[in-house]
Each structure stands twice: as C-alpha cells, then as structure tokens.
C-alpha cells in the first residue's frame, strides 16, 4: 500500500510526458493564430475549435453521426476480416483456389479503394451499403495477405509434431495453422482498423446524407472551418482509442508470442 501514491505519481508524470508534444502543438497553433500569421477564416484558433467541439457535443450532432459512422466501419471491418481470414486460409489450403484468387488479390492490393466509391454509389445508392462495401473491400485485402502469410510460415516441425501426437488432418487447421497465423492476423486487423475509418469517412463524404464524413464535408463546404476541425478532432480521438483498444486485446490474445515479451522488456523503467 505504501507504494501506491508513488506509483500513481509515476504514472501521472509519464502521462504528462506523453501528452507534452500535443500541448506544444496546440500552443504553436494558438500562437500562429493570435499573431495573425494566417487568415483566421482559413485556420481557426484552437479555442474556436474547442468551442465548436463543445457545441457539436451538446447538440448531440456528433453522437448521432458518430454512431452511424462507427456502425458502418464496424460492419465493414467485421465482414472484411471474417472473409479475409477465410480467403487467406483457403488460398493456403487449396492450390486451385490460390491460382484463381492470387491475380485478383495482386491486382487490387495497391488499388486505392476510395476510387471505387462513386461506382459503389451507383450500384448500392447513397448511404449504408456503399460505405460498408467500401470498408469491406479495404479491410479484406490486408486480412487475406496476412492470414495467408501466417499460415504459410507455419514451421514444418510443428505440423509434424502435431501429426505424431495424433492430430487428424482436419484438426490441424484450428489447432496449428490458424494458431500460428494469429500474430499475422492481428497485424492485418490493425491495418484493416485504420482503413475502416478512412473508407467509412471517404464514402460518407461522397455518397451519404449523414455520418461524420458528411459532417466534415458539409462544414468544409460552408466554410465553417472551426466546426470542420472539431469533427476531424473527434475522428482522431475515436480512431486513436480504438487502435489502443485493439492493441490491448492483441496483447491479451498473444501473451505467448515473442512480440509480447519484447513489449514488456521495453516498458520496464
């Protein structure tokens, strides 16, 4: 118990050190604005953005639109991740499947998925379906590529050991291959999570009547940049915390993995 206040103080200082760059950034921003180095209409001061943020919050505008955006991102991400893992496993499992899918994956991997949003809008209309389809496609490919890689790099001796210990061929998939691919699957998931925000918001800017993307676009068009910035800040905060949450889950699930040890070593003071 005697350690407790000391520990609290230590974590408080560490926290301060972490947010110091952010505070510095805000300060510079504020100085640039108050010194009138740039036109106030084009770059609102941080205080004006904060005021807009509070206004958006209290009016409920953020909450409503954020829920919509998160819904689209989450559905697209879950579907994309699920299908991605399945396709990745199938590619590793069947030569025919791999031969059919590889050119498609290779061809679409580097394509910016946002380029397809106008087409999706044409097919699926304005709203949920277009945004979800865009998120789905963007999340799919990193999951496919990482899952495939993870399964493929399963050491032969692990498979042989499992077989010699009585694992049947069908059981090898859940017990060895997919387990071995988990670190890669989580790497893919982290990339996909980032994409899910990007694509949900891009799709809303182009083809939606609501959502945070629409909000940003609308305030941008109107020239109310303080509100636009407030909406962007909101996205940054949500994206940051969901990434952290995923990292926490990853660390829980992959306690056995070398990377977990590395993190712990580094975090020791």
């Amino acid at each position, binding site marked *: 118990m005697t350690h407790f206040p000391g520990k609290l103080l230590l974590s408080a200082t560490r926290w301060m050190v972490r947010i110091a760059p952010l505070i510095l950034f805000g300060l510079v921003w504020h100085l640039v604005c108050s010194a009138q180095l740039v036109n106030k209409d084009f770059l609102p001061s941080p205080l004006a953005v904060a005021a807009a943020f509070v206004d958006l919050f209290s009016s409920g505008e953020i909450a409503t639109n954020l829920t919509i955006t998160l819904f689209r991102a989450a559905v697209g991400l879950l579907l994309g991740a699920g299908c991605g893992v399945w396709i990745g496993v199938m590619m590793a499992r069947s030569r025919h499947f791999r031969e059919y899918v590889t050119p498609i994956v290779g061809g679409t991997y580097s394509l910016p998925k946002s380029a397809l949003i106008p087409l999706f809008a044409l097919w699926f209309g304005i709203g949920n379906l277009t945004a979800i389809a865009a998120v789905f496609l963007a999340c799919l490919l990193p999951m496919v590529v990482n899952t495939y890689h993870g399964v493929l790099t399963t*050491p*032969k*001796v*692990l498979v*042989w*050991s*499992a*077989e*010699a*210990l*009585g*694992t049947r061929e069908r*059981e090898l998939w859940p017990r*060895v291959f997919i*387990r*071995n691919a*988990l670190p890669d699957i989580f790497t893919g998931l982290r990339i996909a999570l980032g994409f899910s925000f990007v694509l949900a918001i891009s799709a809303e800017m182009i083809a939606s009547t609501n959502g945070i993307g629409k909000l940003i676009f609308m305030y941008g068009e109107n020239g109310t940049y303080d509100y636009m910035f407030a909406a962007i800040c909101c996205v940054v905060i949500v994206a940051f915390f969901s990434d952290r949450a995923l990292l926490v889950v990853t660390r829980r699930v992959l*306690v*056995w*993995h*070398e990377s977990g*040890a590395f993190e712990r070593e580094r975090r020791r003071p």
Partner: protein
Amino acid sequence: MLDLDRPKIEIRGVSKTYASERGPVLALRGTDLTVNEGEFVSIVGPSGCGKSTLLYVVGGFLAADGDVIIDGSAVKGPGTDRGVVFQEYALFPWLTVHDNIRYGLERQRVAASERDKIVDRLVNVIGLSGFENRYPRELSGGMKQRVAIARTLACDPAILLLDEPFGALDAQTREIMQDELLRIWLETRKTVLLVTHDVTEAVYLSNRICVMSARPGQIIEEFVVALDRSCSREELVISEPFNSIRNKVWLSARRQALAAGKQE
C-alpha cells in the same frame, strides 16, 4: 514382453529424391536398416547426407520409395506409435508447458483425471515443476527440449525418433540431457532411433551405430557398442573400450565427411 530379437523397424530399400531449383536431388539411395525391439540405434554421418530424411520417412512425414515396416505393417503416415523429438524443439508456442505435454493425451481422448496424473508426473520427471504455466518463449533451450521429450513420452510411444535432439544445446546441458535420455531408455526400454552428428553422444547412448555415406545416403558401416553402462559417465568416457569404439566410429564418419566435402 520385450523381445530383443524381434524386428521393430524395418527399412527396406528406401530411396528419396527431392525436387530442387537445380533439378532433382537424390537424398537416400536404397537404404536398409533393421532396428530390433528395445534397441537404441544411432545414425551418424556428414551433414546433408540424408540421415534426418531417413528419420522423417520412418516418422511417416515424408513419402519415399521402398518400404518402412513397423511391427510387420507398412508405414503410411505419421502415427502415435512413433514419438518424435526435433532439434528445434517444435513446442507449440501458444501452449503452456502443461498444455504442451497434455496435447497428445487430449488428441487420444485419454480421460481427464488420467491425463492430469500423467502430466504432473512428467513435469516432475523433467524437473520443471513450478514452470507448468510458462510459455515456451520463457524457457531456456534445455528446458524446452525437456518439455518436448516429456510431450512425446506422455503418449507412451513404443518408438522414439530423435532428430539431433541436443544439437542446439550447450555442451554441459547436452550431457545432462543425454544422461536423462539414457535413464529414461533404461527404464522404459523403448526402441530408439537417434540421428546425431556427435560421435561421442552416439557411443555413449546406443547399442549400435550406423554410419551413413555422403549424399546419396546409404548405411555403409555398422558398429555394435557393447559397453558396461553400470559405471558412472566419467569412468565410462575415459575407459579404454569406450575410446576404442569411439575412435573407430569417428574415423569412419570422418572418411564420409571428407568425401562429402569433395562433393561440394
């Protein structure tokens, strides 16, 4: 009953060709070897001579031409009658020490109470009590290899296939592990096929040593090791009979290593 004259493993005319970028490579050519029940046989030879390949064929992991017969029936794939220990430990990194040892028992649907008894006993045998809940990455090389051996012994296979099991360990740990293996073998009298490049290890552990030729591998010389193992390791290793057989095997293996060197 243990019948020392009954063939346990019969390898008949086994050949294996690997596909490589520079065309097919013949790893084994018409290899023959019979291992009797309860026998401890080592295979030594230059690296790349196909001795591990032979072990994988016996394990049923690789298909090859020729026949491998265990207890009178041909091997068609891996089986729980043959326990394997690899040089790289091959523990499941996502399972704890306890769960790694339990893995094979679960696959064979051993009753839960029985399972825990076996795991607890083996954890004690390998001297890792207190480490049951550690993951492999938290263990030293020697500890990992102990777990790998325990995992294999848990299923009580009649045959142990050991692929340079102590090759990655430091010299001191290796000797300790050899003593443990010898003790386990003397207790259980399993049939053991050991692949190693360490001649002293082979002499110390086995009844019989087969020297393999450079690629394509074939067994070209055999040595029967008849040593009195009742004395201590120190006494045995410096004794005249031990060194005379060790020197003979070493010279034979060295001839093959030099021949292999010329092939390069």
